[in-house]
């Protein structure tokens, strides 16, 4: 008995074919893919960190609009009692956080970014998370299995899961799509006393952001976070000059959607389901031939043939 080197190579060739095809062909494909056009009615939020005073009125309005329980537990933060959630969670879809770096600090509003090319909707097995009207991503309980792959995939850690429920739901900002036809609905934007967060179509929001940057170039970081980041978002951010968006806890994604590599590898491997079918046919033919030749050889020696 020997396993020759050739046998070994064949083992690897057979076993590794799919993976190899995937990984080699994948990245090449990625560069050719063009971003889908942005729908004209895509709506979102523009949050201006320089205007926010951290009053959390948006959080209260959000929880009221979505019938969410208000967090009552008091935490001690920096020596002072604090009774708001420190991050979004299954009872809270938006919250103002404060980020400190050195002697500087800045406010940051956390909520779903409504990505133009979201990872969550690609991860979701049965399409529970899907873009609906105005490009808003909503959750459908009937199609959700509670697998939480959306949480793994979301680069912003937005979808939240009800861990203590026997009938758990995924909780995330849906831009108050059910409120006032979704057009002027976002409760957070409606109540903000400083208009630090405003609601509009993506084009309107971008125009507003660009105007602010042009009017007071010294006040702002010149970048609009979400214009291109991760393929672009419908909810976008402005922050003060000297404050980096990564300091606000926003990931540095580059301009391509974070799901791009995964999708190109997956879709190249399974394009038209040709590779799996081909692999199956090759395997079936090989096995059929090997098994019948074995049985023939076996019949000369005696009865009994089973796998």
């Amino acid at each position, binding site marked *: 008995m020997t396993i020759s080197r050739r046998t070994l190579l064949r083992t690897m060739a057979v076993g590794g074919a799919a993976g190899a095809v995937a990984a080699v062909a994948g990245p090449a494909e990625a560069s050719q893919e063009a971003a889908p056009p942005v729908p004209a009615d895509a709506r979102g939020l523009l949050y201006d960190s320089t205007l926010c005073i951290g009053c959390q009125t948006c959080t209260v309005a959000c929880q009221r609009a979505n019938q969410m329980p208000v967090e009552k537990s008091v935490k001690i933060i920096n020596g002072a009692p604090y009774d708001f959630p420190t991050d979004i969670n299954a009872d809270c879809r938006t919250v103002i956080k404060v980020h400190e770096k050195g002697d500087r600090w800045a406010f940051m509003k956390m909520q779903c970014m409504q990505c133009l090319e979201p990872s969550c909707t690609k991860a979701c097995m049965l399409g529970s998370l899907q873009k609906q009207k105005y490009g808003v991503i909503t959750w459908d309980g009937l199609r959700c299995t509670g697998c*939480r792959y959306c949480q793994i995939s979301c680069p912003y*850690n937005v979808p939240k899961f009800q861990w203590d*429920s026997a009938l758990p739901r995924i909780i995330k900002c849906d831009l108050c799509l059910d409120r006032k036809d979704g057009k002027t609905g976002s409760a957070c934007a409606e109540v903000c006393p400083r208009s630090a967060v405003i609601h509009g179509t993506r084009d309107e929001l971008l125009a507003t952001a660009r105007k602010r940057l042009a009017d007071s170039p010294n006040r702002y970081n010149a970048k609009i976070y979400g214009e291109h980041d991760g393929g672009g978002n419908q909810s976008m951010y402005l922050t003060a000059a000297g404050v980096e968006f990564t300091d606000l806890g926003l990931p540095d994604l580059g301009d391509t959607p974070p799901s791009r*590599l995964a999708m190109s590898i997956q879709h190249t491997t399974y394009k038209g389901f040709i590779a799996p079918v081909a692999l199956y046919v090759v395997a079936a033919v090989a096995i059929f031939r090997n*098994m019948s030749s*074995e049985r023939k050889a076996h019949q000369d020696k005696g009865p009994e043939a089973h*796998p």
Partner: protein
Amino acid sequence: MSTNARPVGGKVVTPLFLALLGLAAVAGVLVGYRLFKGVGAITALTDAYSWGIWKPINVVTFTGIGAGAYGVGLLTYILNNGKYHPLVRPAVLVGAIGYSLGGASVMIDLGRWWGSVFLFYPPWYNFNSILLEVALCVLTYVGVLWVEVTPAILEQWSAGDSSKLKQLAARFQPRLQAALPFIIALAMLLPTMHQSSLGSLYLMAPTKVHPLWYTGWLPFLFLVSCLTMGFGSVTAVDILAGNVLPGRYRTHMKLLGGIARVAGWVSLFYVAFRLADLAWTGNLRFAFQLSVQMPFFWLEIALFAGSGLMFLSRGARADRGKLFTAAILSLLAGAAYRVDTYLVAYDGGPGATYFPSVGEIMVTVGLAALGVAAFLFLVKKLPILAIGETHS
């Protein structure tokens, strides 16, 4: 050639068997509690770490152990090394049990498990979802593996006393025999798809997975390492069966030696490929920068290299104890790579940490115990293990 498999026989209810069922019962109670109180009631999972040990251990490692059926199947049926036949049935049974447990774990872990009925409703399929591909593939493969176990059941029936079962067996045996090549081909295709996709899952999180693990080759590396795990599991099971189970079953050192050589080269190939990929992308520097992940990375490489070299050493291949050690090391290597990719390399966000709860660990232990108990029961009742010398 003949597989010469016989039921091992002997008493089913032994102290070991009862202890295993006891552990499984504890897991059962915990699962019952989870059904009413939610996933959070027995796990340490959070929104930051929403997949815990149940994914990389119960699903990805149990199925990795079960991949022996895939590895031995490739050697036996595709590469036509008929001599490995005696190893096929135990490997397939381990696979059927491992994959069933993996599937059961997923159901326990799914927050809205009842929603999984819609996995049978194609109009809702999201063809972008890597997890959907894994789910459908694993679901089908569990069925395929149990179909592959049925020849042993039919054989047992035809050898038994009941004339009714004999008739049934006589009716189905030829049909099954005719269908087998096409079922086995499916059993080769499906693991190729889902074992690689178990790695692809984390391609979706480029910002969260440490650069020592994040690479476009994740699917390929998961596929290669499932082979080494599969060969390790086949070897370990065969040696254990020879040592622990009553009866005249003997280990097939020559066959295992052949498997060990393949496993050894595949392990070393894995190490070389992994290091080369890291060097190529420039991420190898992280292997020399102090971080929480760094020691885990080297442990993983050491396990693959160590088991690979041991598999290839002539001395180890001739010694049951050493070969068993090598097999266990290769299982640990694959398990380490899986746990590292899913948990150690995963960054849940600033300040977020995860360590499995007692409940999670007990469910994992209980399911593993149930698997061992099922294996012991079935090899005693069904012709799975080859008795005595089979090949010269």
